[in-house]
């Protein structure tokens, strides 16, 4: 195979990991933009409640926004779908589906993923899940509107969109299950000769731990989805407690279920999911760092052990999302302790990266700028999480805008900046051209400023007690009046942030044709194996199987002829 491929098998129904990676990348970037658009519509409602939405308001229809003024139900739909789309259709498929697929087989010297057909199935099931989610907006009653966490009993009695949401989630879970199996098998089985585990690039380690989390944390959510589907379709009472009244009436169910059961099952996935989002990003940042500080990464082994530990502990912290559910102090003490413990490996990883910079001659190119910005942004996100991990402070901060600010600092200027760094870094490998530097700066600096304009004031609003998921931005409560003006400020920041993405979109497409051509197959003078392939890598990746002689970050080795020694070159003894 590989010699007489038709257009369809080469570009559409391809089993080549690079084509699948690019399919994942383009799809997830589209969904990131779509999820962002949903949020921009919500930001109008928060800044100017009850005023007609300009331009697009007239297109939304009477069921969503009569006269262009958003209905509360539509606001809830946008909120639930923004979260679902950003997490399950945007950030995770970009970090795992796109970068994992593109880079992991190349970095381990493999011809493809271990199970190429499963890999293709994984993408198409993912796309199907995405289309089901998009389709649900056109159902009577609209898309799911019970929040991305789909808490019962609200989700049990919600409109038909919730059922379709569950179906979409089942597709997405199946897709990530296939992906998780494939990544683990690939990393265990297809490493090139000499590439021992402690010689793996840190990005591959990040993907390996991520794949285990996908494999083991998603099935409980699938189980929860099945139970909620039974509740909604077969009339069971898994999540319907006895004695529940809905609008003053007793619902026609047997009762005897538990609403907390859903929360346990959901957050058992939900917390490992945080690290599914984070670890690929940290992997990318480490690769970009090593390449641009021209030094070995300080504490590589320590970082590897840290994320392994982090992967294990992430399964026993889930109830820190549930301090307000009336749990006993003993249980709460346990989860507070594990939550404080899990912050340690993240701090170790960040500290190692910062120590690595010490004494390096840093190259400030576009990937490095985004990777550098990741450190303080993720740092703010992580540190603001500590008060939420302790029950006493969480009782005050729970479900306020402080929480929104906290996790968006982790995901938006943190993880998404790292993903941008990855795009700028690996773009030349697959197109043979650099992304435009000027447009890159026009993308980076406004994005960095606007991200902080958007999320920093949310901390202030949250500390003042402003609740999340408020249709009017909290205007009806007197205690919010002092911080309401921030809503307009934040919304302006969000819309400007959208403008700042235009240079990226232009550069992403234009640079493939007009960008500066790379000078060699290894334009960044990197050490890892993905740069030892032709540009772009052909079907089967390597012309001959590489043999690996040393660790991943042999930069500036004393006595070497150049300041980088690729893993497949023997180098100085």
């Amino acid at each position, binding site marked *: 195979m590989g010699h007489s491929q038709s257009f369809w098998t080469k570009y559409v129904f391809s089993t080549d990991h690079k084509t699948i990676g690019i399919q994942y990348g383009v799809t997830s970037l589209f969904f990131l933009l779509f999820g962002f658009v949903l949020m921009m519509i919500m930001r109008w409602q928060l800044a100017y409640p009850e005023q007609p939405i300009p331009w697009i308001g007239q297109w939304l229809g009477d069921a969503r926004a009569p006269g262009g003024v958003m209905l509360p139900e539509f606001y809830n739909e946008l909120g639930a779908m923004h979260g679902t789309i950003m997490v399950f259709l945007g950030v995770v498929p970009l970090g795992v589906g796109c970068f994992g697929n593109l880079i992991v087989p190349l970095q381990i010297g493999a011809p493809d993923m*271990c199970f190429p057909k499963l890999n293709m199935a994984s993408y198409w099931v993912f796309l199907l899940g995405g289309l089901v989610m998009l389709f649900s907006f056109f159902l009577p009653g609209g898309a799911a509107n019970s929040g991305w966490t789909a808490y019962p009993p609200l989700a049990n009695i919600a409109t038909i969109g919730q059922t379709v949401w569950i179906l979409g989630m089942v597709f997405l879970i199946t897709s990530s299950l296939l992906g998780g199996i494939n990544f683990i098998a690939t990393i265990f*089985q297809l490493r090139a000769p000499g590439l021992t585990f402690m010689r793996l690039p840190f990005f591959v380690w990040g993907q390996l731990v991520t794949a285990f989390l996908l494999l083991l944390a998603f099935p409980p959510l699938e189980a929860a989805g099945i139970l909620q589907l039974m509740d909604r379709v077969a009339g069971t009472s898994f999540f319907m407690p006895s004695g529940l009244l809905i609008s003053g009436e007793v619902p026609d169910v047997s009762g005897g279920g538990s609403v907390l059961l859903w929360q346990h099952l959901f957050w058992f996935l939900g917390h490992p999911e945080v690290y599914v989002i984070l670890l690929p990003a940290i992997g990318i940042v480490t690769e970009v760092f090593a390449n641009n500080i021209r030094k070995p990464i300080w504490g590589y082994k320590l970082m590897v052990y840290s994320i392994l530990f982090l992967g294990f502990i992430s399964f026993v912290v889930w109830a820190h999302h549930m301090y307000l559910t009336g749990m006993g102090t003993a249980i709460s003490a346990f989860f507070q302790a594990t939550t404080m413990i899990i912050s340690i490996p993240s701090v170790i990883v960040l500290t190692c990266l910062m120590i690595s910079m010490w004494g390096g001659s840093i190259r400030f190119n576009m990937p490095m700028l985004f990777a550098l910005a990741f450190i303080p942004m993720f740092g703010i996100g992580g540190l603001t999480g500590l008060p939420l991990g302790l029950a006493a402070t969480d009782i005050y901060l729970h479900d306020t805008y402080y929480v929104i600010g906290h996790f968006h600092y982790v995901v938006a200027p943190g993880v998404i900046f790292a993903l941008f760094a990855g795009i700028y870094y690996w773009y030349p490998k697959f197109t043979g051209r650099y992304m435009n530097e000027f447009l890159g700066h026009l993308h980076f600096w406004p994005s960095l400023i606007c991200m902080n304009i958007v999320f920093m004031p949310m901390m202030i609003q949250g500390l003042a007690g402003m609740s999340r998921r408020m249709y009017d931005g909290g205007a009806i409560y007197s205690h919010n009046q002092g911080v309401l003006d921030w809503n307009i400020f934040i919304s302006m920041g969000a819309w400007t942030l959208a403008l700042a993405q235009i240079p990226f979109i232009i550069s992403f497409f234009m640079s493939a044709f007009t960008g500066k051509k790379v000078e060699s197959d290894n334009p960044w003078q990197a050490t890892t194996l993905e740069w030892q392939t032709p540009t772009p890598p052909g079907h089967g990746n390597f012309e001959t199987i590489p043999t690996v002689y040393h660790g991943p970050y042999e930069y500036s080795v004393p006595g070497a002829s150049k300041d980088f020694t690729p893993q497949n070159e023997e180098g100085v003894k």
Partner: protein
Amino acid sequence: MDTIPYTVKPRSDTGLYNAKLGIWLFLASEVMLFGALFSTYIILRVLGQDWPLGSTILNVPIGTVNTVILITSSITMVFAWTSLKKKNWGAHKLHLGLTIGLAILFLIIKGFEYAAKFEHHHYPSESTFMAIYFTLTGLHALHIVGGIVVLGYFFGPGAKMWQSDPDRFTNRIEIVGLYWHFVDLVWIFLFPVLYLL
């Protein structure tokens, strides 16, 4: 360098061929899926005001017969694989056919059991016991159906590989066998938990 290595022979440092690692990982995720549902059972039962004894509602003799059928099918599954190792194609066909037959028999009996429940108006919405009973056994039955589809493929069109690549075909039977044993194992947990306890 165009093909994936270790599709037939194990890799020396991991001792596994690719698909065998793949199926073990898949089964790990299945453990988490059924583990979550069994945990649900425990939580519902602990929270429940009065939880019925399974044997007063469900038909224990039928459940016992089905348990025997599934365990027998696991044995024939092993023989279907070992006879391939001994290059005995006839014995393989016989045992694979028996496995599929027993699986279908299991579903038929399960179908009668469901029908009897519906006849007496026992639906999932009746109580959380009936809800978890139908959910767990229904999901298990879906796994049986999936197994029948894959076994049927290797009995029918997939058997061609025995001519072209017998080692790989033997591996495939080993892998579907691992899955089949797992599905049996789930039933061996399901039966006492739902019918007896």
